[in-house]
């Protein structure tokens, strides 16, 4: 049809242009890197993870008496508690930012295969964030150990399970970011998706704690943050999931949200 109605000489773009997964990956990378909000939220996450971790270690060594024995790895990575909020918000924004501005219409007219966009965005988000999060977790750990060394309660990357805890911090935050993305696709509204995110990672644990026994312990074990954070602990709490099992539970929740979001994305009008 195209050839019959338009002489080839008039076309400035060759007929060999195609939408491929690689092209869409590249498009998604341009999108992610060209928004200030991406870099601001990443910077906030990095600052929170390193800063709060350092503060927690300093708080410990500044006390006169040793209150309790600590997990030095987990202590130096304590910034995950706040970092997850910034990072979850980033996940939400890479999706809802397009719905809020109408960009989503340009997105799906340029690439009508919605699942291609869905998976390309996921791939770019995960790889970019891990590139930022892994060094962040390592720096937070090293800074924290330097502080803890004053009371000789520090540990090293060579100690058993420490690497897993440090990388686990990056993996945990990446999972929360993806969770935010899933909520974004599902709810399609920035405020709504952030509200849901805060509800799940912040409010639900508080509500769980105020419930009668045995619910606080049970819920703490099963809630996304409670289960997922096992991977950051070197000293594993016997009442909780093991590191990989707990992370598996978190990933399970993330996969459920993504699957529902993907199914709705396929069937809904944009």
């Amino acid at each position, binding site marked *: 049809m195209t050839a019959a109605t338009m002489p080839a000489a008039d076309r400035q773009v060759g007929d060999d242009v195609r*939408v491929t997964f690689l092209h869409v990956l590249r498009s998604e990378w341009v999108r992610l890197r060209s928004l200030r909000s991406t870099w601001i939220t990443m910077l906030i996450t990095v600052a929170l993870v390193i800063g709060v971790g350092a503060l927690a270690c300093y708080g410990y060594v500044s006390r006169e008496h040793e209150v309790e024995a600590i997990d030095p790895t987990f202590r130096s990575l304590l910034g995950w508690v706040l970092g997850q909020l910034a990072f979850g918000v980033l996940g939400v924004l890479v999706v809802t930012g397009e719905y809020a501005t109408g*960009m989503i219409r340009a997105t799906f*007219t340029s690439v009508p295969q919605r699942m291609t966009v869905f998976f390309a965005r996921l791939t770019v988000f995960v790889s970019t964030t891990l590139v930022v999060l892994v060094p962040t977790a390592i720096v937070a750990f090293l800074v924290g150990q330097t502080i803890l060394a004053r009371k000789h309660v520090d540990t090293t990357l060579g100690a058993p399970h420490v690497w897993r805890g440090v990388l686990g911090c990056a993996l945990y935050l990446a999972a929360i970011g993806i969770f935010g993305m899933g909520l974004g696709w599902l709810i399609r509204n920035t405020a709504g998706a952030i509200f849901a995110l805060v509800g799940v990672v912040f409010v639900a644990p508080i509500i769980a704690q105020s419930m009668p026994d045995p619910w606080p312990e049970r819920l703490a074990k099963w809630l996304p943050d409670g289960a997922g954070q096992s991977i950051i602990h070197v000293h594993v709490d016997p009442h909780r999931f093991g590191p990989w099992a707990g992370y598996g539970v978190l990933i399970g929740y993330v996969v459920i949200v993504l699957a529902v979001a993907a199914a709705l994305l396929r069937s809904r009008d944009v």
Partner: protein
Amino acid sequence: MIEMTGLTKRYGDKTAVDGLTVTVRPGVVTGFLGPNGAGKSTTMRLVLGLDRPTKGTVTINGRRYDELAAPLHEVGALLEARSVHSGRTARNHLLALAASHGLGVKRVDAMLDLVGLTDVARQRVGAFSLGMGQRLGIAAALLGDPAVLLFDEPANGLDPEGIRWIRQLLRRLAAEGRTVFVSSHVMSEMALMADHLVVIGRGRLMSDSSVDEFVRRSTRHQVRVRSPKIDEMVALLRAPDVHVISAGAQTIEVDGMTSEAIGDLAAAHRIALHELSPLGASLEEAFMEVTGGTVEYHAEEAR
């Protein structure tokens, strides 16, 4: 070529598009006309696969939109609603779209140049005026050098010079053999822009014809008559098919009789006429005639 067959879209119990069967052909500018709320934008969204039809089909060059291998190369669309992330620069916006098809910086810069946005290419879109946003939308539509172009209310927010520019652009694109489908609720724009007209009202097809034919077919021809003996004239014109209304001192407008017949009648009764002028039917009037009963929200007529 865009082909719609029985295209229908319902939102709940509200039917936005109702059984449209229309073929939009290459090489001409096809105007898509209808009052606000008639279903123009919904139709555009259905063509682009953003909304799924409740019933019926729409294809572009024989294929469903989501089956196109290179959508930007086959269809360029400018939607009425803004479709740009306000936090990105104009250039990055186009780069992101271009990258999905393997198109590069050169093509993006050529398009920025074409629409006159080169100087502001590195500014964030959020600061753009309505007209600049519209130009960016047009650059995005032309990015893939598409054979089919869809423009939803392209003149929105443009100044008169911009409107003239887009009119010439659309005509040139059609002359190059492309299919150009452009919607508007402003009739005078269409008269200057379109060769062919598709008119809808309340989601239904009202007319599908050339602009000339549309005007000819759907207007009643009126004649203005001014005479010092206008009362005698009115008495003479009294007939079942003839409709007379007063249009000021000694002036009437006659509907249902040609100017020749009125002139002869006056001469036969020796009545002097000071004016006898056929009122040219405009596209505007033809449009009101066709869609008059279908407007969703009538404003109270000013008295």
